[in-house]
């Protein structure tokens, strides 16, 4: 598990912090890899604009706010649902919601836990 994480983190260092133009699953994995590797600045760059804007408290940066949340490892992808421009990616340790913007897939919500008959309760959301 550690090797793919290192590969993803290295890929992040090479590709910078652009949103993923490929699949929502890869975007979700890259987000978690960045957070786990402590590259919260890069992870923030993968968030949807409204999500990144709402995340920090006044006077706090997005990267600091994301670091303070202490996300657990995302783990492997278990399920991906794509409907139109929106997607849900289930990882072994998290559920994320994404939207396809003009520049690629960005994370709208992460750290989500299901609530019966109601929207997911997410640590990070727009």
């Amino acid at each position: 598990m550690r090797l793919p994480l290192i590969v993803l983190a290295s890929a992040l260092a090479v590709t910078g912090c652009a949103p993923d133009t490929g699949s929502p699953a890869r975007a979700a994995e890259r987000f978690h890899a960045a957070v786990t590797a402590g590259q919260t600045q890069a992870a923030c760059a993968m968030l949807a604009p409204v999500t990144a804007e709402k995340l920090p408290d006044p006077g706090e940066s997005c990267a600091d706010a994301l670091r303070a949340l202490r996300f657990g490892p995302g783990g492997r992808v278990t399920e991906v649902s794509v409907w139109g421009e929106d997607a849900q990616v289930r990882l072994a340790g998290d559920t994320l919601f994404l939207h396809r913007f003009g520049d690629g897939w960005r994370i709208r919500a992460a750290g989500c836990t299901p609530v019966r008959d109601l929207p997911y309760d997410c640590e990070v959301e727009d």
Partner: protein
Amino acid sequence: MVETVRWLRENSLSMAFLVLFLLSVGGQAVAGLHDYNDQQLAQGLTPISFLAYVTSSSYAVDVAENWQSEYLQFFLFIMLTVWLVQKGSPESKEPHAAGAETDERQQIGPYSDEDSPKWARVKGPRLWLFSNSLGLVMGTIFVLSWLAQSVAGQAAYNSERLIDLRDPVSWGSYVTSAEFWNRSLQNWQSEMLAVLSMVALSIYLRQRGSPESKPVGAAHTSTGVEG
């Protein structure tokens, strides 16, 4: 040129409705795109192009849900008026003529003439098929439109659910959901009311020159007479 003008005049009713349909469906696409993008922007999401919208599930479900209800309306109207009557309505047959009627009245088989369609002059499955072709085609378009509504509706509904941070649902769950039946029934109720209005109001009201109305001077009690 003269031929074209004559052809247009002889088919003016179909042509007028074709043009009105194209203008309406195009207008729906433009208005729908603006409404869709307005909601996208309000949710902090990206607006989409005209092409992306007219190929989206959101546009498809809005079109299909209206189509299915219109074809259901005409299918039911065609089929129920075979057996059910409304005394005094030009939309109905005389009460004594209820049913599939005789071969003689329907001009089929030995009662057909040289101008009758080919399949009206034969017997067997082809005659049955042609005898029921209008209802079959309208009913088939209704079923296909309703199916298209369910498929496009599931996609549009799931997209909205993901935006609301909720799990998507299966097709089976969607076609038994309140969303699907609300979309269907809100269209059906208006179609049934429109037919009821047409059948009942045409007993007492007239539109001079329209074949959908009785002649202005026809008695309120006269049935199946078109002006």
